[in-house]
């Protein structure tokens, strides 16, 4: 690593601490949210430094991108007066409690974590990688060794959409007032790029950092950008529309494959070795598509109307 690397890590760590602190204690919610988004972007750098490029991709697209968009759109909907009633943090209160507690935690947890031998599972994963159907170990863990986790994770995304939609209708207009003709242009120009990058990430996933989650996140972020640029969302809350199936696609496909392999005398989620690669690619396609739609649906913040046209302000 060397001295330059260490200096870089030091600066990065200090910046992370500063932005995290600002995200919670900065004056004004807008500053807090922007600090948090910067925190997310810097975290992506930290993941790269820790040799986790897969997470860096996901963090940049989801942690900073989608979460940031979600936070800003929630902020736009907040009534300022309602927010102000309980505005700033209770500064300086309970310092007698928090300073010693913080130091104690820092020493205790830091010490405990320092003592960890961290045996890790790198070797067993490497040993079984040949039978997993893919070459990228992270994809092998996500979609083969621990595929049940991934199924539940996509289920949670779908559940999040259901929960959010059950709370009420989507606010409209969902995009800020247009201040520039350049933004719709940007949306039009960039959307093909978003599709291309997603496809590229999906294809890369089998042998290098990438895969369904970053790909879906990039695609979903593209959709959010289109919405911000004033595009009409085509995702409708229509009970009979095909969109609900498209949203559920990833979860249904994973459940389908998990049960389908059982017909061949295998266990739940036990892919036949010769088919594993193709099955994983199939699942990645379904999951990536549905993750993109689900993240977009989360951004809508509520149940979309059955027909957008009727809601459109003249």
């Amino acid at each position, binding site marked *: 690593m060397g001295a330059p690397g260490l200096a870089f890590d030091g600066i990065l760590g200090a910046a992370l601490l500063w932005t995290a602190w600002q995200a919670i204690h900065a004056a004004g919610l807008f500053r807090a949210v922007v600090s948090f988004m910067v925190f997310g972007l810097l975290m992506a750098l930290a993941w790269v430094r820790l040799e986790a490029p897969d997470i860096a991709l996901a963090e940049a697209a989801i942690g900073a991108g989608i979460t940031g968009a979600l936070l800003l759109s929630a902020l736009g909907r907040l009534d300022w007066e309602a927010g102000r009633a309980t505005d700033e943090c209770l500064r300086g209160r309970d310092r007698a409690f928090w300073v010693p507690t913080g130091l104690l935690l820092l020493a205790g947890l830091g010490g405990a974590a320092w003592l960890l031998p961290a045996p890790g599972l790198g070797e067993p994963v490497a040993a079984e990688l040949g039978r997993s159907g893919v070459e990228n170990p992270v994809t092998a863990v996500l979609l083969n060794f621990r595929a049940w986790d991934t199924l539940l994770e996509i289920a949670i995304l779908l559940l999040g959409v259901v929960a959010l939609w059950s709370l009420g209708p989507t606010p409209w207009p969902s995009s800020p007032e247009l*201040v*520039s003709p*350049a*933004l719709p*242009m*940007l949306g039009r*120009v*960039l959307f093909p*790029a978003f599709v291309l990058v997603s496809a590229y990430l999906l294809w890369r996933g089998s042998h290098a950092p990438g895969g369904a989650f970053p790909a879906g996140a990039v695609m979903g972020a593209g959709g959010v950008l289109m919405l911000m640029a004033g595009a009409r969302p085509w995702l409708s809350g229509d009970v009979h529309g095909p969109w609900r199936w498209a949203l559920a696609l990833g979860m249904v496909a994973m459940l389908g494959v998990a049960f389908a392999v059982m017909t061949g005398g295998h266990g739940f989620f036990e892919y036949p070795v010769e088919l594993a690669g193709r099955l994983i690619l199939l699942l990645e396609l379904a999951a990536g598509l549905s993750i993109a739609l689900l993240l977009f649906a989360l951004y809508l913040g509520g149940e979309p109307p059955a027909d957008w046209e009727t809601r459109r302000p003249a």
Partner: protein
Amino acid sequence: MSLTGVIGGILTVGGVLFLLLGTLGLLRFPDVYTRLHAQPKADNIGLGMICLGLGVYSGSLSLTLKLLLVWLLMLVATAVGAGLIARAALRRGIRPWGL
């Protein structure tokens, strides 16, 4: 050190200098419009030089093309972003410095 290494290094360091100047402008200029005058432009040049420098340093054509694609996307995004900020500021009635 090879020739590509030297050229790549020079380009990258030059790019960083441009970024530094842009950031200096961001910190020192009095209002949002003058800051927009300084930062995006300097950043675009700086990032372009860094991308080009890294591409030359790597000696791989495909990597250079990818880096240039990154630069191109950033150009579009920065231009639109700067325009949006300026328009939003105007609409909110923030008057340019000195007027």
